[in-house]
């Protein structure tokens, strides 16, 4: 795809502003009705999906040029996809999330990427990771764990730790706990350790499509070499990349998030939660596991019209609107923990508020990123929860950083952490 391929959508976007709000049917209060972090923070129309359609159209038609403001408009999008869900409450022929991604790709291809991103991307040319630390020691998080090392040892199930868990000591215990829980339940898994590469998901959301393809092809080749049939991860970004972005590049492995596996193991009686965890928690749906965690359905078709002017597609185009994301498995797991009470925030499931870590925003706009996280913390507190629980180390990291910056207090967990406490 190219930005030009969205020209029709730029005209067909009716500028209704649904993209700025959670689905209206679910509005429960004034305080937590907005959905898009960037337009909520910067306020100009331009920072919403409708505005980005207009800005992209203006660029394509040569009515305006790329300025610092334009770059900010594009790169402050976290690609969280909340606009996409709200837009598609009523529209079946717009893809605002894909359009914004394409806008980022275009800017990067034209040399208009952000310096804050370039540093991370440049490092990838020598070290296949998206963190700012060296590849050496990537597998250290698993030191002491009794887990197979691929490809020298063989197993069909790979646990992909991901960049954040590999290099962030605060969240490493979650990855270790995940591996231990899976092993205790009899799942034979292996890791790639120092040979693990970045999934490329964050690179993709920053606008670096070519880098993503390079990383994805490397991973797909490594998995094939190791005989991997199933990839498990505790990282929502990784899950999304493997589940949705890799198949068009030839990946055919089964992709599972840890919460899906834990849910299955608990239901099958292979993992029993006995210890009480007396705590009221709320679950934060990671964007890339929730609304963007839907199955990949290949499509290669064209637009056509029926009834003279109704825009449809031949063959029927899959509709990714958050309907079939991964929402219940983490909740099932949490509800299985004795003594734990799960309460919901106002914005939940497909219309969750983003943690603020996505799209390269954490790297390039730290203040905005932390504000986004602090909004979620405020919502979690309003739910009456003592702790906010997620299923992604990037969300966890951003919440921790926000709490540190604001001085607010709230416990932050991964689902895996609480399961570990309950086993």
């Amino acid at each position, binding site marked *: 795809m190219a930005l030009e391929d969205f020209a029709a959508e730029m005209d067909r976007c009716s500028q209704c502003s649904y993209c700025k709000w959670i689905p209206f049917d679910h509005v429960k209060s004034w305080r937590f009705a907005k959905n898009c972090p960037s337009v909520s923070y910067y306020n100009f129309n331009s920072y919403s999906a409708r505005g980005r359609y207009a800005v992209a159209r203006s660029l394509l038609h040569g009515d305006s040029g790329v300025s610092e403001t334009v770059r900010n408009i594009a790169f402050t999008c976290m690609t969280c996809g909340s606009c996409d869900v709200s837009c598609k409450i009523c529209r079946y022929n717009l893809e605002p999330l894909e359009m914004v991604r394409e806008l980022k790709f275009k800017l990067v291809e034209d040399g208009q990427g952000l310096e804050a991103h370039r540093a991370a991307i440049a490092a990838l040319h020598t070290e296949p990771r998206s963190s700012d630390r060296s590849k050496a020691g990537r597998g250290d998080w698993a030191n002491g764990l009794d887990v197979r090392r691929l490809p020298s040892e063989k197993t069909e199930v790979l646990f992909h730790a991901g960049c954040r868990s590999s290099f962030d000591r605060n969240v490493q215990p979650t990855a270790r706990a995940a591996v231990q829980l899976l092993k205790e339940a009899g799942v034979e898994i292996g890791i790639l350790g120092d040979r693990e590469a970045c999934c490329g998901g964050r690179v993709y959301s920053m606008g670096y499509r070519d880098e993503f393809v390079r990383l994805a092809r490397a991973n797909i080749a490594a998995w094939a070499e190791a005989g991997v049939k199933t990839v498990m991860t505790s990282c929502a970004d990784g899950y999304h990349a493997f589940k949705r972005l890799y198949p068009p590049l030839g990946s055919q492995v089964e992709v599972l998030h840890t919460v899906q596996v834990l849910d299955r193991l608990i239901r099958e009686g292979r993992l029993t939660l006995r210890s009480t965890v007396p705590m009221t928690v709320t679950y934060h749906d990671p964007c890339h596991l929730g609304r963007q965690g839907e199955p990949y359905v290949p499509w290669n078709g064209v637009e056509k019209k029926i*009834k003279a002017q109704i825009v449809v597609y031949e063959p029927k185009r899959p509709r990714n609107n958050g309907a079939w994301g991964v929402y219940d498995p983490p909740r099932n797991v949490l509800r299985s923990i004795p003594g734990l009470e799960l309460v919901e925030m106002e914005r939940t499931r497909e219309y969750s508020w983003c943690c603020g870590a996505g799209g390269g925003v954490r790297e390039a706009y730290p203040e905005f990123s932390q504000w986004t996280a602090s909004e979620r913390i405020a919502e979690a507190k309003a739910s009456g929860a003592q702790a906010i629980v997620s299923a992604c180390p990037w969300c966890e990291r951003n919440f921790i950083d926000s709490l540190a910056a604001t001085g607010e207090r709230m416990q932050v967990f991964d689902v895996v952490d609480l399961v570990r406490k309950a086993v």
Partner: protein
Amino acid sequence: MTLPRHLYKALGDIVGQANISDDPAVLDSYRYSLAHTAIHLGPYYDTFTPRGAAVLLPGTTEEVQAIVRLCNQHTIRFKASSTFWSAQGYPSEDDTLQLDMRRMDRILEIDEKNMYAVIEPGVIGATLQAEAMKAGLNAHLPGSGCSCSILATATSYFGSGPSNLYGGWQYDNLLGIEWVLPTGDLFRTGSLGSGCGWFCGEGPGPSMKGVARGFLGAKGAMGVFTQCAVKLFAWPGPPTLPVEGIVPAYRTPLPRNFRAYTVAFPTWKAWADAAYLIWETGIGYLAHRQYTMFGRDLKFAMVKILTDPTKTLGDLEEILEDPQVQRVTEESKRDFQIVLAGMTTRDVEWQEKAFDEILARTGGWKVEAMNEPEINQWMLLYLIRLGHKNLNLVFGGSYDGAFGLVGPADYGTTYAEEAAEFKKEWEKRGAVVQAGGDCMMGPIGGMGGGGTCLWENFTCFDPYDRESVDGTREFFDACTQLGLERGWGVGMEKWNAQARGPDGRTTPKAERDRIHLSSPQPSAFRYQHKIREALNPNNLGDEYYETLED
């Protein structure tokens, strides 16, 4: 013209540099396509409203006053808009300052006892309704849906919607106003102006509601309304709407004191008789001919798609082949939707009994397919929250209303079929969606029993397709011609033609004068001219505030 730097800086000093922009791309996100929805003129392919000089995001009334005063000092036009639903909210002239009122979005008060809310411009229907429901109250929402500014519908347009029946048209509901006059002075209307609070729009205090609103609302052309109070009405439901279902097929299982029906009638006369009997009996909470916006031939098939999260528009043709869908489509030709809400169980039982009697007398019936629980609960939520109104654009991305027959139930029903047949013939030419001709939607009456219905014939087209846009305009021109020939008057398709022309800019004066002189009451526009001279001496708004010189 680029705004002189010293003026840009001065404006930035007022709102803060983060809240002003003149970046061309930002300015282009504040232009409205005249190939689009609810413009009530055109449509015109690849034509936009003019690019502004700058966009400002004021945060307080004081900031608005300072901006307006600066505009007067330097004779700069300004245009305020809150939620930007249609072309009316965008500049009509080059180099206008666009005020985006989004940051002023507080609900300042919900007075439960006196049943009103005090709001700023950025408050939308959904948030006001959600907060009001916690106090056992509800807000009237405009037909454009809950995404729109409530202040704007009350001060700046006419605010008609499904809850007209119980909640009134929004101009009825407007109480006190805080108004930054076009000169920058602050004016408080009604009881607010005499320091008595917000409770009344017409005094004690300056009875200026009519002056402030003007004909069909001020439309951002006469200063800036920074706060207002609107009436709320009783909500006999839970404090939060219980919502179930998979996106987008959300639904609400409300208690049994709520009933939602689609009813249909053997003739248009029976339809109108039922409307009169509903008003006479005093029953009903919401009433609207809503789903015909998809077209008579498509409406039930669309309901099937919208209530099934696995379906898309790509399933439409197959669904239309379903004999059950065809049967329901035929059965519900002359229909409308109604919600009964009882303040008590006895109340709703009485309303239901009365409504059944109305159906018996008129020969009407409840469309049973719409009573399937999942469809019924979806319809109930849809009508209460009005959060799916962008379905107006679902087909090709654009729609506009034709005819717009406003009058008693008999008036619209007398001509509905003729207008529908006329449209159906045009649909065959291929420029607009082939929907069955009858796409007439609108509210069933106003507050207090009786009043007007509105018959807006939705016409859907593709703004990206030049032939579709041009063909739609030809159809609208033909509608206007038919309306004049038949004595219905100029239809909704041209309602804004007196303010904005084919280039997106102000309609030339000679044409404006011709339109106003040929209107039933030209003196109304002469009166508004006097008001504008008095309150807006530098004429810094645009011609959406309609005037006619002596």
